[in-house]
């Protein structure tokens, strides 16, 4: 795992977890920084951290009706996610988490955007076609007569 750069490093994951609502800001930051340290120590890097605030849960989780949502975007290999999830499972205030891999989806979106931008640059093709046949039709009767 020494030179993990190359194939293993370009996976991007989105990790969303819910923390119990009675957790104070300070402890949340502590938890987030612990996770960030774990990420960087295993060779990944944190792209962004977003605290989505307190939300009402759609169903009761561990007898809580609200929760504080946190979204963490990381880049790294699969082993990194395994480690992060293990930590989250052990951490008491975290009541739910989900990890989604987003680099493949991002590739697809970028491809579509590239196609759309390329298409926008070549619109003049269709309007040019009706003009020449009309001219050709006008010229031939003169020749035959």
């Amino acid at each position: 795992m020494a030179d993990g750069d190359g194939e293993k490093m370009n996976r991007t994951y989105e990790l969303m977890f819910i923390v119990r609502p009675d957790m104070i800001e300070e402890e949340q930051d502590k938890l987030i920084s612990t996770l960030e340290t774990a990420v960087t120590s295993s060779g990944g890097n944190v792209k962004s951290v977003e605290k989505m605030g307190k939300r009402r849960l759609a169903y009761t989780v561990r007898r809580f009706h609200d929760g504080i949502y946190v979204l963490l975007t990381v880049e790294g290999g699969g082993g990194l996610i395994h480690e992060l999830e293990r930590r989250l499972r052990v951490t008491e205030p975290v009541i739910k988490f989900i990890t989604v891999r987003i680099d493949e989806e991002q590739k697809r979106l970028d491809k579509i955007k590239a196609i759309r931008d390329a298409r926008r640059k070549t619109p003049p093709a269709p309007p040019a076609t009706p003009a020449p046949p009309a001219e050709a039709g006008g010229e031939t009767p003169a020749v035959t007569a």
Partner: protein
Amino acid sequence: MAEEIRAAAHGSSVGDRPSGGDRPSGGDRSSGPDRGERRPPRASGPGAREGGRKYFRRKKVCKFCVEKIEAINYKDVRLLAQFVAESGKIVPRRLTGVCTPHQRRLSSAIKQARNIALLPFAGRAS
């Protein structure tokens, strides 16, 4: 197109409808008790797919194709909630008019949102 409709009307009574290639699942499932329920609605129009055999039902278009929404994220609950019934069930695409690839992505996004408690699994059981 008119012939197809007439043929479909006759064909449905026989059982093996001359499907225009895009309704194999309907043909397979019409067996036994389902048949009696299915046929009357189909003959009158509702339940017809977009662009296929339509009676008087207006063409339903895929919302995602029209608005060119490419990314269906599990995080935008408001978008996903439009395709979820009051009971929490995912609405079938013959009712919403969504096209197949978008319905598949929508479905997995809804399931992800359910897992992270953004949408309920079953709410106000109807």
